[in-house]
């Protein structure tokens, strides 16, 4: 029941907030924070009880849900989903704290927020394809509102774009699910993982491609990435955090959980393309980020670049590469989540995100400057911080398999250093712009949201085994499964 409780708590939170009067804003945000905190606590408890030695699924819950269709309420975690679940609950909690600054319509906001968390956690827990799809889509709707109502800039456009893009992708996935169901008459991912590889290779490739469309848009893979900068930029800060931190991971997770185990032939067939796309993502994203003048947009494009390492690692099908890809998802969530929080901190005070508007803040807001420097360094892959480990693993794992893609991707590292340092230079260094002499430093709430992320980045960077040990057995089993001769 522990996994169900992860879903139940946000649900109860929603109900409690629904019952709360509209004007009791403090109560509402406390309730929401409580719900997210409880979920976080539960997921940490899960972490403690999880046996990292086992490659199999743990805490499995399986109840019949729609018997005529053979749909089950089937949850479970293994090394692939556990880091994602923890990431989700953690970021949800922190972003919930950051949401306290939302100016209006708090009741609706927190209801949608908890619904979003419910969907995200569910996506990572689901072991039934139907259930997975349900959660996958459930995420879309609150996200649309959260961007569309509480966003800034061209929020309507961005929200709609996000919605349409992702829905188009998931509809392709839906076709894939249907075709798979017609072939196998089951939605159970475990059974499918056993049955899928036996499918006709041609069909596998087709299905892989259908699922690829769904996941690729979420990741996002070039050229399906254009929703991302808009959505990230116009979303309110906490939602940007979740968007970058969790939603993108749903796409990557899909590859690990569905595409690879179910269609190994397709996966091997597509690996070359995936590596090339990963390379394009890395280099292209970095270059485009370089040219941005809007801070948030820059971070958004850096996400495109960073997610490229996930694709690259995935394409390798080596333990190092896959571990790197998985870890990169976790790390990117933490680091970019932190970056968006930092952008938000700045935006809350200055009401602009134009890089050229700043300068010399380093002296004015030293704590903020330190944090920004730290997260930027993590983002550019400084050794000792978490981003390095995963990028390094992806690269070294892929190098032996996709030589040239990897070599070109290494270039991306240089470019990422270039744009990140440019940010630091424009924002923190140089002479202080007179406009910002009254700027205040990060406050306690902001520190509370940022410091845990900082510690995780440091912890994973110094002792990557702490995360790797959870996922490694599952990933090795997965690779074995994919490469098994048939």
């Amino acid at each position, binding site marked *: 029941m522990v996994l169900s409780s992860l879903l139940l708590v946000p649900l109860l939170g929603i109900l409690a907030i629904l019952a709360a009067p509209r004007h009791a804003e403090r109560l509402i945000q406390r309730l929401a924070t409580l719900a997210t905190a409880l979920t976080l606590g539960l997921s940490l408890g899960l972490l403690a009880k999880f046996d990292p030695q086992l490659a199999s699924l743990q805490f499995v819950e399986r109840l019949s849900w729609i018997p005529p269709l053979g749909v089950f309420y089937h949850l479970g975690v293994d090394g692939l989903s556990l880091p994602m679940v923890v990431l989700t609950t953690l970021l949800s909690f922190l972003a919930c704290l950051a949401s306290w600054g939302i100016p209006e319509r708090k009741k609706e906001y927190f209801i949608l927020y908890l619904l979003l968390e419910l969907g995200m956690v569910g996506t990572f827990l689901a072991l039934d394809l139907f259930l997975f799809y349900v959660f996958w889509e459930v995420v879309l709707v609150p996200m649309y509102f959260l961007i569309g109502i509480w966003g800034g800039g061209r929020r309507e456009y961005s929200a709609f774009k996000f919605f349409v893009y992702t829905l188009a992708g998931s509809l392709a996935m839906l076709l894939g699910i249907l075709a798979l169901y017609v072939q196998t008459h089951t939605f159970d991912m475990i059974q499918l993982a056993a049955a899928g590889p036996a499918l006709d290779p041609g069909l596998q490739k087709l299905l892989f491609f259908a699922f690829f469309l769904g996941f690729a848009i979420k990741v996002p893979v070039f050229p399906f990435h254009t929703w991302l900068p808009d959505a990230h930029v116009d979303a309110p800060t906490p939602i940007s955090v979740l968007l970058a931190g969790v939603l993108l991971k749903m796409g990557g997770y899909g590859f690990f959980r569905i595409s690879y185990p179910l269609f190994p032939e397709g996966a091997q067939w597509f690996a070359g393309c995936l590596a090339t796309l990963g390379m394009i993502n890395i280099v292209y994203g970095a270059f*485009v980020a370089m*040219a941005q003048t809007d801070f948030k947009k820059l971070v958004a494009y850096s996400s495109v670049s960073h997610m490229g390492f996930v694709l690259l690692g995935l394409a390798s099908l080596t333990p190092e590469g896959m571990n790197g890809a998985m870890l990169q998802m976790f790390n990117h969530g933490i680091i970019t989540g932190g970056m968006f929080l930092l952008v938000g901190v700045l935006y809350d005070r200055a009401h602009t995100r134009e890089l050229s508007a700043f300068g010399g803040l380093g002296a004015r807001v030293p704590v903020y400057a330190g944090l920004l420097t730290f997260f930027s360094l993590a983002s550019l892959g400084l*050794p000792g911080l978490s981003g390095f480990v995963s990028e390094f693993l992806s690269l070294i794992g892929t190098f032996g398999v996709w030589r040239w893609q990897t070599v070109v991707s290494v270039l991306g590292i240089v*470019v990422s250093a270039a744009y990140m*340092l440019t940010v630091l230079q424009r924002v923190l260094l140089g002479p202080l712009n007179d406009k910002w002499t009254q700027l205040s430093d990060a406050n306690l709430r902001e520190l509370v949201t940022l410091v845990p992320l900082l510690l995780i980045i440091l912890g994973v960077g110094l002792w990557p085994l702490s995360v790797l040990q959870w996922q490694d057995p599952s990933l090795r089993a997965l690779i074995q499964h994919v490469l098994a001769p048939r």
Partner: protein
Amino acid sequence: MPALLLIPGLPLAAFVILILIGRRLPPPVAGWVSVGALVGSCALTWAIGGDVLHGHRPHLQWPWLSAESGFWTIGLAVDGLTWLMLAVVTSIGTLIQLYAIGYMRGDPRCSRFFAYLSLFCASMLALVMADHFVLLYAGWELVGLCSYLLISFWFEKPSAAAAGRKAFITTRIGDTGLLLGIMLLAFAAGELHFDQLDAVRSALLLQHREFLPTVISMLIFFGAAGKSAQFPLHVWLPDAMEGPTPVSALIHAATMVAAGVYLVARTFPLFTPQSLAAVLGVGLFTHLAAGTIALTQTDIKRVLAYSTISQLGLMFTALGLGAMPLAMFHLTTHACFKALLFLGAGSVIHATHQQGLAHLGGLFRAMPVTAATFLVAALAMSGVFPLSGFWSKDAILLTARHEQAWVFWALLGGAVMTAGYIFRLYLRCFHGPAPTTPTAVGVHAQESPLIMTLPLMALAFGAAAVGLLGSPVSHQFFHLFGLHEAHEGLDLAMLAVSTAVAALGAWLAWTVGVQHRNLVPAAARPAGAALYRLAAHKYFVDEWYDRIIIQPFLRTAERLSRFDLRVIDAAVDRAGLTGWSVGQLKNWFDQRVVDRLVNGTAQTVQRLSRLGRRLQTGVVHHYLLVLTAAVVVLSACLRWF
């Protein structure tokens, strides 16, 4: 071996303390915390020195990425090479930090400064102690970071901020090479531990002949060249002088920039004759070219920076000649006298707030200690017997003469230049007429406080005496490398040549540099002036880089960004998810294909929608006609098809 952990651990602890509570500490305390930690490391280093000298190899390992596979076990290890670096970093680092306490007094971000310095020491120590490529790479990047942070420490100056970024990015380009080298090595040999490199070399040679080791070693050398500011990646080091002078002394003279030399020395087994030739070529070229530039610079620190580049080139030349211990020997002596030179320059700057040679002069009287120690360092660098520089340079010259005679002559030319620029600097700072410009404050300058002069004196002692450890007098130094056979003895001819060369340089410096006597024959003057201008503008390397790398890079970024906005976004927006990205083949393609593709879904849907609307005319007869026609058409279809 907790001692091994403590060596980088102590400065790291200092860093953590300073970054967390540094601002609450009174400024001098911050400095002392940092110094104290480094002293501890220094003491530990010297404590294990005896063991190491006797061939003991302390080693400490722990699992990193995988608990099972030994491949990803990383750790700290100390052998002779490492111990030497440890000794250099901790000893000289201590002195420089001590000096910095005085130098940075009164700076509001003093604690931050010492925090960074501590972090630097920690990473540098980790770098040299690493027993695994990845850990080395980690330290490698971290020292780069510290260099960045410290160069742009006075970030209110835009030039400092820009210089920091330039340093980081340029060295990162080199790091890319190192990273690729590591990946290639891991892929080809499956081994990244340094103590296995000999085995790796033979395995690689067996399997791939010379090609793969050459590629790997060249990639590694590329990384080393970035860190050690070798041509063509040297451009960042002169700019890095924007940082506080103790930083220049510690990072950009004594230790970090020498990491490249260390790296090549560490991975020496991987180097094949071909790659050594490349190392030699690059090192020698850099040695000479940087020397000429140093001759023309008018900023004290820039002269020293080019001097550093030049000396590093010398070390690489030694490496290229295959004389790895000699390169390390020169690294050691260089660390002493170059740190001393920088600290001396810092002392001058601290006293006068001037860096340009035009504004300095005749400071000997005001700052006797600084001047004297500076002189010792200058002499040592010029290779005057029996100071340390003599022993290390002399050994390299000797090897060159044995190996490749032309290198020897080139090095001699370099030696002239070395003496020339350093004495030009020394003489114009401390002797000659005091400048008459109103901004000059030389006459009012006072000697620096004791906390600054004490390290100067200690280093002067070092610059004078360290060389003896590698001299025929005492052979201790080479025992670190397991070389126990006797030194070939003092070559008197070399001694004479060396001293003569140094004297020639000093004389030229006096006559040309200080007295401004033009020695070039009138006929050659235009060419000479052109050469001078070329050197004075650093061979326009920065300008070239800007034109052929940076601007195109920025333009590409701009273009891709626009591409993203206009083509990809628009294409995907309008043409649904067709995912083509060929819109770049502009003009005709745009018009013939893209336009038609682009007018895809969203617009097409809208257009179709309006069309469909128009079909719904509102006139009932049309509806009825459609109904009847549909019946006719459908039944006809059904009847005949």
